[in-house]
Structures are given as C-alpha cells and as structure tokens.
C-alpha cells in the first residue's frame, strides 16, 4: 500500500471508527444509566415495602402506647422517624444531609428512601429508611456494557477495514494505472538517453569538431532527461526497492555530483562557492544519497538566475545549498513538498524533486528545511539529525 493510500485509508478508518465509537459509547452510556436507574428503582421498592411495614408497626405502637415502645428495627434496614418540623424523634441511625424533597437518593454506597406519614403515628411525619446498595447487579451491568462495547468495537473495526479497502480501491486503481504508465514510459526512455549520452561523450573525446556549444546543450538536455528517468524510476520502485545500506562518503559523492552538474552550471554561468568538509560518511543507500543530492543541486541550479550565485556547504552537522534564484512565496513552501506540485512552472520538470527529498529525509530521520526570500534567494538545509 502506498503512503498516500495508507494516509487515505487511515483517515477514513479513524473517522469511521471514531464516530462509531462515540455513537456506541453514548448509546452504551445511556443504556447503562437507564438500567442502573432501574436497578436502583427496584432496590427503592424494597425500601418502600419495608417502610410500609414500619408504618404499620408505628400505627400499632401509637394505638397501644405502652410504657415501652419497641421501635420496629429490622436488619439490614436502618430507619429513623422525624416530626413535621424535621426534628429527629427516634431511629436506628441518624442520617446526615437529608434530602427531604426527594423520594429516594444515593449517598456514598447507601440508598435512602423518604416515606411521608399521615396521620403522624407517634408524632412522626417522615420516615427515612436506608440500606446499603447491592452493587452486584450494577457491577454485572457494567461488565455487560463493557463486553458489548468490546464486541461492537471488534465487529465495527473489521467492518471498517473492509469498507476502508472498498473506499480506497478506486484510488489504488488510478495510482496503479499511473505507475504502469510511468514504468512503460521510463522504460522506453532509458535506452535512447543512454545512447545519446554515450555518443556525446565519444564525440567530445575522439573528434575535435566544431559546434561544441551545441553538443553541450544536447548533453545538458540528455542529462536532464536521464535524471527525470532516474527520479521516476525511484518513485515507482520506492516502496518495494531493496536498499543496500553501506558507508558512503557524502563528501566524495557530493563532489562527483557537482561535477556531473558542471555542464548545467557552466551553461547558466553560475558562481559556485563550495565549503565541503572531507570525511563525512553516512550509512545510507547510494541511490537514496544520489537522489537527495541531485534533486537539491538540480533545483538550486534550475531555479537560479543566469550568472547567479550557488553556495554549497557540507559538514558533519548539515548540508546547505543556497542560491540567488527566483525564491519561493511563503505560502507555497509547504505545498511544494507534495508530489507533482510546483511553485514555479518557468522551468521544466514534473514537480517530483522535493517529494523525493522528503522521502529520503523521512527514511533516514534527517531534518529538511527551506528558507526562501521571494525573488531573492532560497536556502535548502538538510540537518543530519538522528
């Protein structure tokens, strides 16, 4: 799966799964809350039945009114009676913070039931009865709710995976078709470009002919085509390309690549300043390193002014290429790193250069920054940060 496909897939998947999860969480919470209310309601009914029993006993006590009145206490129910002024008369406990206007309420792990009395047997107008809440059915309900969420989560994750694949299928097909086209095109490019470059070199070396300037132009054009071929092949094969990580002298490689671009530099009559520290070595795939350096140099040359400056700095900390070129608008800096996006169309190219640079930088955990002043200069920095 390509990174763009993966991105689209994960975006769809996270939106789908996130919204489904929120919906189910909400539904489960409402269900749990309602069921818990029902459980508490049942336990309140038990309290109400006991309150009725106590009321009957109070009525009997009020009738007999013997010297000693035995309060109808029955374990596990605690109860107390209050007069109409809400003053405590008697009981097996003295509850605190009574909510007089509630039929029942919870306080910590106890359930309280308020039972109004009339007539006022033994002067009592309120009977408060309490019992420890039976947590078992509530715990079971919670377990059931979590289990339901888990099962629903697994089911909708699987469904999401299936839907996600269906969702990205058309995009995948388009990308595959495009890649196939690039593959076929680049394949057809390779042989003629190689032939042109070999023969230019041969003419330049063996024959002392006129028209050196024209030959150089052909060489530049052919090298540009060659790089495009290399870049397109790199992008096409990037996700399944087998890398050979080896210790590469970046210093030597950079010098070679500058030499490779020499014809192009000369044609633009650029003033090149080099500060290349020797012995900079990294464990990197050679093709990755070439693509990184080539694309940075190529852009710096291509988008430079004629007779402009080109400053190349390499040290153990970073690699900087600075030109006195066209510059990039501030709002375009982030956009140009996307594939096929170009801030300036005055020069040839597909807009894949910065995409390749970004991929290499990401793969090796380097840091990549572009600083540009529009119409003045552009500085590209690769920070060799691990």
């Amino acid at each position, binding site marked *: 799966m390509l990174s763009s496909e993966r991105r689209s897939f994960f975006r769809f998947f996270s939106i789908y799964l996130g919204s489904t999860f929120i919906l189910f969480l909400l539904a489960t919470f409402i269900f749990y809350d309602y069921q818990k209310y029902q459980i508490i309601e049942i336990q309140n009914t038990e309290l109400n039945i006991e309150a009725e029993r106590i009321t009957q006993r109070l009525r009997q006590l*009020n009738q007999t*009114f*013997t*010297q*000693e*009145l*035995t*309060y*109808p*206490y029955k374990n596990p129910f605690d109860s107390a009676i209050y*007069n*109409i*002024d809400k*003053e405590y*008369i*008697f009981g*097996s406990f003295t509850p605190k913070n009574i909510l007089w206007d509630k039929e029942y309420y919870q306080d910590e792990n106890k359930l309280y039931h308020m039972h109004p009395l009339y*007539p*006022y*047997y*033994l*002067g*009592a*107008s309120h009977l408060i009865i309490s019992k420890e809440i039976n947590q078992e059915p509530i715990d079971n309900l919670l377990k059931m709710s979590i289990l339901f969420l888990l099962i629903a989560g697994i089911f909708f994750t699987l469904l999401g995976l299936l839907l996600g694949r269906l969702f990205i299928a058309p995009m995948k097909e388009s990308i595959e078709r495009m890649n196939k086209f690039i593959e076929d095109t680049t394949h057809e490019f390779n042989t003629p470009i190689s032939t042109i470059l070999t023969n230019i070199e041969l003419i330049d070396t063996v024959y002392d002919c006129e028209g050196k300037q024209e030959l150089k132009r052909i060489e530049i054009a052919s090298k540009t085509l060659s790089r495009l071929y290399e870049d397109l092949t790199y992008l096409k094969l990037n996700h399944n390309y087998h890398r050979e990580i080896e210790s590469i002298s970046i210093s030597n490689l950079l010098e070679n690549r500058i030499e490779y671009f020499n014809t192009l530099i000369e044609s633009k009559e650029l003033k090149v300043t080099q500060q290349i520290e020797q012995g900079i070595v990294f464990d990197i795939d050679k093709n990755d390193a070439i693509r990184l350096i080539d694309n940075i140099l190529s852009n710096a040359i291509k988008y430079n002014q004629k007779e402009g400056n080109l400053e190349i700095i390499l040290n153990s900390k970073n690699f900087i290429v600075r030109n006195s070129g066209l510059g990039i608008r501030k709002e375009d800096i982030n956009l140009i790193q996307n594939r096929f996006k170009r801030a300036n169309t005055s020069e040839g190219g597909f807009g894949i250069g910065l995409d390749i640079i970004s991929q290499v930088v990401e793969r090796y955990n380097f840091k990549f920054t572009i600083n540009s002043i529009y119409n003045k200069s552009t500085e590209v920095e690769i920070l060799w940060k691990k």
Partner: protein
Amino acid sequence: MEKVIIKSLLIGTFIITSSNAEVPTIIQNNCLACHTKQKIPSELIYRRYLLKYSTNEKIKESLFGYLKNPKKETSIMPKQFFLKFPEKAALDLNDTALSESIDVYLEYFDVKKKLVLP
C-alpha cells in the same frame, strides 16, 4: 364497637396512669385529679394530639387554646366521646401556670422517652 374500644382504652389508660408512681405533682393536681376521678383518658388525648399535630410546640398551642376556651367543636376528641364524658369547663389557671402544666404534661408523655430499640 367504638364504645367498646374507647372503654377498653380508658381502662387501660387509667391502670397505667394510676400505677405510675412518678406522676409530677403539677399534673396530678391540675390534670389527673379530675381525669382519674371522671375516668377521662389523658394519655389517649395526648396520642390524638400527637397524631394530628406531630410536634410538642403545635400540640401546646392547640391544647392551650382549648383549655382556655374548651368547646366540643374545638376538642381533639370525637363527638361520640362527649356522649360518655362531660364537656370540660375552662381551667381556673393563669396563663403561666397553664403553660407550665402543659409543658410538664407533654414531657411526662413524651414519646421519645418510651421508644427503645429491640
């Protein structure tokens, strides 16, 4: 049937009140002397007040008003009660003495003192 209940309650009350040795003098003189003599159940009256008014403050207010100006219509007892017992005459007590007597009466019958846990 109602008469039978009232009778048995009166007898029960009389026995209780008679057997209670700790009856305060003020109640004995101002209340129970007549109540015992005429077999009028003072404890039953207290219970009826309790059933209707719930708190000692409200009972006292109502009882005070009744004792100052006793009438069948304002009595806590049912009309049938007066078929058996005579209508009460107004007490010859000043307000302070009457108030004090009611306080002692309510204290004497106070339900809080009677209630115990099993």
